[in-house]
């Protein structure tokens, strides 16, 4: 038997199955009944059911034909607006099959698009309005430009309550025959920050280790983190720049992580309570500030590895100063 990830396996298939977001569900059902949908904007934190709702809506609208009538795009993969235009054009050219006269384009992570790209998107929305409806999904609605917002029916997805999340996790655990303790639940809540997908993923990873306890949850999360991040930071602080940079390259090349991915993990590492990096508070703040500066330079600059190397060079310097001040304190 093959098995996809639980987060997918237990994704609600119909609007009725969605247990929370009642307001949203009620309005969407109205659209289904009328077989007419405006452009949609789904906004809310990660893992609150936005994509699920979009897929369920599509399913209910098109029934078995849904695969032929829905195009799924992710803005953080298709950054060039040109690609989006072409795929949409190609897609909208053929007539919608079945009882609904338009096709549906789900654009995930739409708030990752630059405002220029969004302007272009808006034009595409106008151009194909007769044959296609857009469903834009975003974490931060304020990052969607005003003209698009005003073309869309707006749906706000509320954060999940602890209860909703727990009951879902318990339900899954039961079905999968996993033993799940209360502290395990609490730990998952802590690391998932109300993100249902992340919570279920964490549950599955912890379950792979055996019984789901606080311990196994943290262990799973720890194992999932590339250890190279903290190693890299520690090497730099110790003064070993060359090997720290080696680690950096492993992260970028072997793990395929972008500079932004890495700087985020560095940031997480520095502020994590469980981190192996021991720093006095004022130094930690200094590093946080540095991380901010480097992140900014990466956005402005063109070569992430050079920017991150500069970060490491500064860490080497900070490490040296730190050792000196410790010594002089003695």
């Amino acid at each position: 038997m093959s098995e996809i990830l639980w987060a997918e396996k237990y994704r609600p298939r119909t609007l009725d199955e969605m247990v929370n977001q009642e307001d949203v569900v009620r309005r969407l059902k109205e659209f289904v009944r009328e077989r007419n949908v405006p452009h949609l904007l789904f906004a809310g934190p990660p893992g609150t059911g936005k994509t699920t709702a979009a897929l369920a809506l599509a399913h209910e609208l098109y029934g078995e034909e849904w695969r032929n009538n829905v195009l799924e795009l992710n803005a953080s993969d298709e950054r060039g607006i040109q690609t989006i235009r072409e795929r949409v054009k190609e897609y909208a050219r053929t007539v919608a099959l079945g009882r609904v006269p338009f096709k549906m384009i789900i654009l995930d992570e739409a708030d990752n698009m630059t405002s220029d790209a969004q302007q272009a998107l808006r034009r595409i929305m106008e151009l194909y309005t007769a044959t296609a409806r857009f469903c834009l999904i975003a974490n931060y609605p304020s990052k969607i430009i005003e003209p698009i917002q005003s073309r869309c029916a707006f749906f706000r997805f509320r954060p999940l309550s602890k209860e909703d999340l727990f009951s879902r996790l318990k339900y899954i655990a039961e079905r999968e025959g996993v033993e799940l303790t209360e502290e395990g639940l609490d730990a998952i809540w802590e690391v998932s920050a109300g993100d249902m997908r992340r919570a279920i993923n964490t549950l599955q990873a912890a379950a792979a280790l055996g019984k789901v306890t606080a311990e196994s949850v943290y262990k799973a999360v720890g194992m999932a983190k590339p250890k190279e991040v903290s190693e890299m930071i520690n090497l730099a602080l110790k003064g070993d720049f060359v090997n720290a940079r080696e680690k950096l390259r492993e992260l970028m090349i072997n793990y395929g992580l972008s500079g932004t991915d890495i700087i985020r993990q560095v940031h997480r590492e520095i502020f994590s309570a469980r981190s192996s990096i021991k720093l006095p508070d004022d130094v930690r703040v200094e590093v946080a500030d540095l991380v901010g500066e480097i992140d900014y330079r990466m956005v402005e600059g063109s070569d992430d590895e050079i920017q991150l190397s500069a970060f490491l060079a500064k860490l080497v310097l900070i490490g040296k100063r730190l050792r000196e001040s410790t010594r002089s304190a003695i």
Partner: protein
Amino acid sequence: MSVNVPWAEKYRPRRLVEIVGNKKAISTLMTWLKSWEKGIPNKRAVLLYGPPGVGKTTLVHVIANELGYELIELNASDIRRAEELERVIARALNTSSLFGTKGRIIFFDEIDGMSGTEDQGGLAKIVDIIERTRIPVIMAANDPWDPKFRTLRNLSLVIRLNRLRVHEVMRILGRICMSEGIKADPAALKAIATMAEGDLRSAINDLQAVAQGRKFLTLEDVQGLGRRIREYDVFTVLKMLFSARTAEEAKAVLSRSAIDYDMLIQWIHENLPYQYKDPEELWKAYDALSRADVYFGRIRRTQNWSLLSYALDLATAGVAMARKHPYHFVKYQFPKRLLMLSRAKSARQLREAICKRIARQIHVSKRYANAEIIPLLKVIFEANPMMGAKIAKALDLNKDMIDLITGDERCTKAILKNMRQIEEEKEEGERKPFSPLFT
């Protein structure tokens, strides 16, 4: 022969005995050619390489002439697209020879001058021709070490022609002077030969430029000759950069290197920590390089190339002025990252393929799949091969993909074993496979 022909042409050797130097290379080539009389040899092609002006093209022409072969030649002045090559070769092989020679040689001259755009598919076609040919194929190039020639090199007998020695060049120059009726001071000829750095043709050109129409040639006449520009290699450039004492000196290295700016930045980046051991210096240099990179980013976004000079100031003078301690020599390294990138190319494509599958199946971005899901899969694969095997099946992962995720051979084996087990159970039980709705 007309008097109006440039000397380099006029005195081009016509017979083997006239060729100076590279005796060993010539005899290797002759032996290989003669071996064709006994049937198709192991290597069907020869790759002749060497710097300009050592006589590659001449050698091929002379040998063909002496051994009675007809040459079918294609060079950089010809269009060398795949279909073009095929056509020319086919036509040449089908028409019967006008000269009644015993055979033909295909000669691809200047293969490193193949254009990426205009000669698309040309290289692959040459490889194809070599694999099929029933007649000798000879190629010539200045620099055959480009990775794109790897297959060609493997298929060929590679023969190197060396730069000529100063006395060899002098001998030829002397012969020319004699036949032009010029009395030449050997010192003058030596000066010309030395300046040519083993490039015989350029020496002859220079000789014509200073001596044509004269009766005598003195050392003084040669003084005005300009030395050809041969650029500094990147190692010299780095040494000059890091040892620069002033900002101006550091900036000046740019004018003496042919290396692309992006490439130079990579070399500097690679070698900074070897050059600068002191953290203070290292940070200062990296700060400058990072600022330079910010300008490159701005140039890319705004297409405003006038910002380039600031980027270069920082990347050269900025990096050089970070030095507080005296310069010390360092053995500079090739940018390791580029090696890593080219080595990891197939792994990257594999990772991309995995991410694409995950993204499609569970409706996330490829980036999310890479940063969030793959690490999770690794945990599951290591801890619970059975659960891992099921997921691997659902995602339709092959051995390489699983290997990339686990990074551990034992773990991969365990997963594969479990996958086979599932397969067998399925055959036995004929159980309806799980089919997710949204895939």
